[in-house]
């Protein structure tokens, strides 16, 4: 178990910079998920920690020791790869025990350890098979066993579940979480699947285009996104964002197209007039009769079983409202979107950052207790 300190780490390939100065402190024993869209530099960051990629600038320390110049094997990290990267010519037992063999452990001792690890992952019956004779989920478990057996200080996972089908993914997610509870090893987990991130993480690091957008607990990034990017990325669907002009005197946002959206003036007491993005959750808004709340035009709906997501346009932007009754609409129908003032969140239209001057959001239902980061 070890803490990881990442200080202004950058990565450049030739002239292209792909990671732009990341700062991050991971506590010992923490489960941190790095979440972001494809190509944002998640894997690159993880691989710099593992030692598979040189660090162009900045510093990474694991357990208080700067590892910039250390070989991967000296860093005490174990990694699970997306496509498992098992040695195809070795049996499951040899795959799991290879690190020990390299370390020079005796055969009997190795076998004992491999068997213990295999038992904890339910792989006892497959020890003599080759990876080619295993299912995807079993291979994934072998890859985890290979990482576990070294008793590393840090586990690194690079999208380990993305090759599995949906049900297996959920099952493996539970297993990874259990493994973490049992071993308590510091874990960094890369994914672009926000559901995975929300369910696994102690804290989520949201990355975009080589920068960290926000670091926080799943509740924080969901309830109090620091930027429009995080707001739109987290949650299914993401936060509804409507462009407009803030009028603190009236306590409303003038949306494009002339509509007005009221917000909680007490909460945003410090916010000054200017161009903003007003955001609210689909679940927090209610669909109303036409003329009530915001005026919207129906486009289509998505059936989710328990609820339905109604997509429409208002004030020149898309809105999504979740709806639990069975009302039927056809394209072009008008409907109202009723947004409680307390649910409206404000972002700077220019920078995309959350507006400053917000009071402690105790009034927001379901808002997380903020913890100093």
């Amino acid at each position: 178990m070890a803490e990881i300190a990442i200080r202004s780490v950058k990565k450049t390939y030739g002239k292209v910079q792909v990671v732009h100065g990341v700062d991050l402190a991971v506590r010992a024993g923490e489960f941190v998920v790095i979440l972001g869209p494809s190509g944002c530099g998640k894997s690159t960051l993880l691989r710099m920690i593992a030692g598979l990629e040189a660090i162009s600038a900045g510093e990474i320390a694991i357990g208080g020791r700067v590892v910039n110049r250390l070989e991967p094997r000296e860093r005490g990290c174990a990694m699970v790869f997306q496509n498992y990267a098992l040695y195809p010519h070795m049996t499951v037992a040899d795959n799991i025990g290879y690190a020990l063999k390299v370390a020079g452990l005796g055969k009997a001792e190795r076998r004992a350890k491999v068997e213990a690890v295999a038992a904890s992952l339910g792989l006892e019956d497959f020890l003599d098979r080759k990876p080619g004779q295993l299912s995807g989920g079993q291979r994934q478990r072998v890859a985890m066993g290979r990482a576990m057996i070294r008793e590393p200080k840090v586990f690194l996972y690079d999208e380990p579940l993305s090759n599995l089908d949906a049900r297996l993914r959920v099952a493996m997610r539970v297993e990874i979480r259990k493994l973490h509870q049992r071993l308590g090893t510091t874990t960094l987990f890369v994914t672009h699947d926000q559901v995975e991130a929300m369910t696994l993480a102690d804290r989520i690091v949201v990355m975009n285009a080589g920068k960290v957008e926000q670091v926080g607990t799943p509740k924080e990034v969901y309830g109090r996104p620091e930027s429009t990017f995080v707001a739109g990325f987290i949650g299914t669907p993401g936060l509804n964002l409507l462009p407009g002009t803030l009028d603190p005197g009236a306590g409303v946002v003038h949306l494009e197209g002339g509509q007005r959206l009221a917000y909680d003036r007490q909460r945003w007491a410090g916010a000054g007039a200017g161009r903003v993005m007003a955001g609210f959750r689909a679940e927090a808004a209610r669909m109303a009769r036409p003329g009530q709340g915001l005026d919207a035009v129906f486009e289509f709906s998505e059936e989710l079983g328990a609820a339905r997501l109604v997509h429409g346009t208002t004030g020149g932007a898309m809105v999504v409202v979740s709806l639990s009754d069975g009302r039927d609409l056809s394209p072009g129908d008008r409907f109202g979107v009723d947004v409680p003032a307390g649910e409206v969140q404000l972002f700077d239209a220019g920078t995309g950052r959350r507006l400053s001057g917000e009071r402690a959001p105790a009034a927001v239902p379901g808002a997380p207790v903020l913890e100093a980061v």
Partner: protein
Amino acid sequence: MIERTPLLNLVTHLVLVSGLVLLLMPLWIVFVAASHDFHTVNQVPMPLWPGDHLAENLAVAWQKGNFDRVMVNSLIVALGVTVGKIVIAALSAFSIVYFNYRLRMLVFWVIFVTLMLPLEVRIVPTYAVAADALRPFQAMFDAVGLSVDLPEWNLLNTYSGLILPLIATATGTFLYRQFFLTVPDELTEAAKMDGAGPVRFFLEVLMPLSKTNMAALATIMFVWSWNQYLWPLLVVTDHQTFATATMQLQKITPGPAFGEPPIWNVAMAANLIVLTPPVLVTILLQRWFVRGLISTDK
């Protein structure tokens, strides 16, 4: 495109069979000729069905060609060349694919260009080096003005002389390079995370994975080096000790140089003897051979 009409089936089979006949006919004639006695084989036209003198002819050829000794020589040379080529090819490809040094691509192209310089083209300088293996180094020392006197190291009439000049192989390097490029990067990285250094990775991961490649290369190279004729003829003067099987064929094949009438039946029997080992190797490694060349098994 898969068509299933009886007529097309018939035509394709006809093409196949005629190709087969075309390929096998010469071999059949060798076999038939090797199985008749001296008189029958010289009749015109020659019979097309085997006679009953095969064993006898083989025995004569074996004894006449000194095959006891010569087959062993050929085997040593062919195995030496094959193993040498595989080792060199795997190592050089490993260096080119897995290590990042400045002249990497240059080295690759230099190796690649030697494809255009087979032994036959550079036979005179190669012979000069074989006659004194340290001479290039001596020349280098002389050129920079160092007065070091290297001993003369003559490779003529030795197994090293027969084997070493045949070992360099651009084909093998290329084949291995292509294979190494298909090994996923993540496998290399997994080995790194497991703490394996380059040597371990090469021996314990890459080599076992390239078994089919190795078999393909071994087959091609064994047949190729077994059939070498020109080079052994040049470096071997002590024919009693170092002659190879192919060299003996020349002596058995009748011709005015030997002042004998053409004893085709014995000559063809000798041919049968000489072609057996490469055929066996090909048959044994064939299953691997095909997989190594189309190589997509994980």
